[in-house]
């Protein structure tokens, strides 16, 4: 239940800040009669995302990424959008405010008009019902892994969490554009960086599915190419290509290029250019996920062309086959994710998260391998276990006079009972000693052994050592000072 509440806490600010408010601001007082809501959605998202990324770079460079400045700038951006979208100078005209108020009252009173809009929406959605259900089911299917596991399956997830945490702490500038895009969402959600990054992945996946649908519709005016495109996309991105899809940068990149393509199709140069520029800022290289999306779209268009050009019986058979294909896709088993690894035990991530939630901010320190840093950044302190063991040898810990030099209430030391298996047997020459400890089995075993030795020595001569968490793989010791 809690994870779904947290998911909503990420989803609602993301939709409101990146899509809803910019779209409403552009549409509310717009005098452009031809502006379509779906176009405005894409334009609003791309422009606001571009603005937030630049704002993040700018404020991050001065170490001033602070909630007050960010939300004031965002408010100015929205008001600016409203002012630029309207051409009659209503902002300075008192009468237009009065008329606006009167119009609002009238629209509330005229229920029939609202019903008409609702009817039109429902009528439109009937054509897209199957597609909508398909996308929703795909989204739930995809979201299963990030909703049920705290650890990240790729190194990019940890790196992005650290970038986001660094930006929110105002401790250094960051070059990660997706972190600057997620930062306002993190501020509005009140959640930690790791949770925001993890839960934003399925939302961004939903975004790329929507972008595929928009792109299909922009060039065909039919829902069927989209159905034909999303099924192969989903198969490739949530199956063997899962690692590619779980990188927010890649997802955003592909989404933005698709939006740029929509803009080009609709002859909106601004949208196309903004989308491409933002995509370049996010990842200058071509992500694999975009190629999958492109191939899926090609399959969609070719399939739709064949359907349309063939005899009616083939068309009906194709639709029936699509339904069956969609249903069979959804009936396929959930993607199998290993219970642990590749960078940390799931229980280690959960223990670090539990510490951060349970204990008062910045009153504790976690001493562990580096991957737990992502779960404590912005909430507490962290020290890497190899450095800790180098600084405080076991012989010193056995001395009664020895005191750990942390002015904190609690120290948590993570010790792996069964060192996390690693593929590499030897460290890569030229790399730091950390690669030996983290990426090789002998290094990991040696680190765990030394940590256990330290704890044994310390607890034999000091009071206040308790076990905070223990399972078959990991034990977390708590030293209360």
């Amino acid at each position: 239940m809690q994870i779904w509440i947290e998911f909503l806490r990420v989803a609602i600010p993301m939709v409101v800040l990146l899509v809803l408010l910019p779209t409403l601001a552009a549409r509310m007082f717009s005098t452009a009669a031809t502006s379509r809501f779906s176009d405005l959605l894409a334009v609003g998202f791309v422009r606001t995302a571009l603005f937030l990324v630049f704002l993040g770079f700018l404020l991050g460079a001065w170490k001033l990424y602070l909630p007050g400045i960010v939300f004031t700038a965002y408010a100015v951006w929205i008001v600016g959008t409203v002012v630029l979208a309207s051409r009659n100078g209503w902002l300075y005209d008192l009468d237009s405010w009065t008329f606006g108020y009167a119009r609002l009252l009238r629209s509330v009173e005229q229920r029939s008009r609202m019903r008409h809009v609702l009817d039109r929406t429902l009528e439109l959605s009937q054509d897209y019902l199957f597609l909508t259900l398909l996308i929703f089911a795909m989204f739930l299917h995809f979201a299963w892994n990030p909703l049920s596991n705290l650890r990240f399956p790729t190194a990019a997830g940890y790196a992005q969490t650290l970038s986001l945490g660094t930006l929110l702490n105002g401790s250094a500038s960051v070059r990660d554009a997706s972190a600057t895009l997620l930062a306002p969402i993190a501020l509005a959600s009140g959640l930690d960086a790791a949770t925001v990054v993890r839960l934003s992945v399925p939302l961004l996946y939903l975004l790329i599915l929507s972008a595929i649908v928009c792109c299909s519709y922009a060039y065909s005016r039919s829902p069927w190419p989209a159905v034909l495109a999303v099924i192969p996309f989903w198969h490739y991105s949530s199956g063997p290509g899962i690692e590619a899809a779980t990188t927010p940068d890649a997802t955003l990149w592909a989404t933005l290029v698709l939006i740029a393509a929509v803009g080009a199709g609709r002859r909106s140069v601004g949208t196309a250019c903004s989308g491409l520029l933002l995509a370049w800022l996010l990842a200058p290289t071509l992500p694999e996920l975009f190629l999958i999306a492109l191939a899926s779209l090609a399959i969609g268009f070719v399939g739709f062309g064949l359907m349309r050009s063939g005899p009616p019986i083939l068309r009906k058979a194709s639709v029936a086959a699509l339904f069956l294909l969609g249903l069979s896709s959804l009936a396929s088993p959930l993607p199998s994710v290993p219970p642990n690894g590749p960078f940390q035990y799931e229980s280690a991530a959960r223990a670090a998260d539990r510490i951060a939630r349970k204990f008062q901010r910045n009153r504790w320190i976690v001493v562990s391998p580096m991957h737990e840093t992502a779960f404590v950044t912005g909430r507490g302190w962290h020290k890497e276990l190899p450095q800790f063991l180098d600084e405080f040898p076991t012989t010193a810990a056995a001395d009664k006079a020895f005191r750990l030099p942390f002015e904190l209430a609690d120290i948590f030391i993570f010790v792996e009972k069964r060192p996390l298996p690693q593929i590499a047997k030897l460290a890569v020459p030229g790399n730091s000693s950390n690669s030996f400890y983290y990426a090789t089995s002998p290094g990991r075993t040696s680190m765990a052994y030394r940590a256990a030795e330290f704890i044994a020595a310390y607890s034999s001569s000091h009071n206040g050592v308790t076990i905070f968490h223990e399972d078959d793989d990991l034990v977390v010791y708590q030293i209360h000072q």
Partner: protein
Amino acid sequence: MLRNSPNCLTAPSPTGTLRPALDAYDLAVRLEMEGVTDEVARTEFGLPSTFALARKQLCNVTGGDYAATKPAEKSRLAQLFNGVTFAIPVLICTITSLLYRISLWGGDLSADLATAVAIGTISSFLVTGGIIQASARRTLFQLQCEQWDEARATCYHWTLLGIKTLVGTLGLGWAFNQYFRWLPTPIDWIALAFHLFLGLLWLACGILYALEMGWAVGAAVLAGIGVVASLHLGGGWPLLGAQLFGVAATAAIAFAVAAIVMRRNRKKQGRGEHFSLRVAHKIAPYFLYGSCYYLFLFSDRILAWTSHATSSSLPLQFRGDYETALDIAMIAFIGQAGWVHMSVLAFYRHMNAAQSGFNVREAAAFNAELQRFYLRRAAWFLPVAVALGLATYSIAVHYGLLPTEAMRKVAAVAVASYPLLVFGLWNTSLFFALSRPAGALGSILASLMVNLIVGYTCSRVGQYENAVYGFAAGSAVFAILTTVGYLRLSRTVDYSHFASAA
């Protein structure tokens, strides 16, 4: 028998239809209807005003003592005291804290607990500030009309609204903290408890201030401190628990005193003024002003306490040195604020006197006279205020009360800013006296924005104590905007005076 007596003074009336006057007010109205202005009363009857003539005539008829019916005018010292009564709780708490290490709130607490108390204190002011301002506006109007029943009922309704708002914001605050997890348990509950109990205390004090019973506020606060002392020192209670109980006791005493005074003066069971759309429309500017004013007063503290707090255990860290420096500067502010109350009373007196000195075709001269009065007062105030500020700062430095550079900077800037704030308050009081709250509201809103923007920027780019520059900039803007606004208004003060009485 008076010379050239008007008809209404020669009762019974020749036609036998004119009933005897009900009271002095009724008779004064009848006299004015017959053209007996203050000037006529002065030149032809040798009395200072029409109202004095009415009182004298009634005494002649009823055999009463004219001198006894004369409204008592308070001495300047009493006026000054009335002007500074708002600071009584803070002053008493500061003194008892310095002398006996015991106070109604604050004191010898850990940083986290002090933060909780500070949050509760500030939020209680922010929530109740607008309600107290709006309630006082209506209650004072009814008390001046001697409508005690209505005033009592109005106080009751507004206090009830205040309590509901306090409870509502309590729930909102709890939900907000559950969402953002800024304060851990039990810090959150302590902050919420102080928010509720201090809010009740401010509501009760608001009623007593409206009744001009500042001494009762002082007595209630002293009794509350007595409760804290007996529970903490005698009963061994934890300080925070004793303080919460003490604040609740103080609020209860203040409410009880207010209720007794209101009940003693009541004449009949009145229903008072219900909260309606009409009342809300009339009172909204005063309510908004009250809320914005308290936000203005505390915004620099909030900015200073939230600045550079990423490595602290709480996102809002109470900084005692900043608070101490501001508290010391506030001593000068209290003295200056007393001047505002005196000046507003003097303005009323001068306006009434000037009004009877000019005829209807001399409106421009009347306005010019009031403008001269305003400028004279301003010319007196500014040097005295600056001298008071300098004296406060020098004494504090001399006795080592400002040991760090940051504290001296905060105190110096605050001491320099308070005269500007007080001058703005004086202008605001004149806006309110002339029932023109829009000018005050616009000024405080603009000043608040300046305060927040400048304070935020300075405290984030530099050190946290730079938040005080926001307060200084906001105070300067407040003084300038209200002065310009009043000088504009003073060109047509005759109309505003007439309209405010309507």
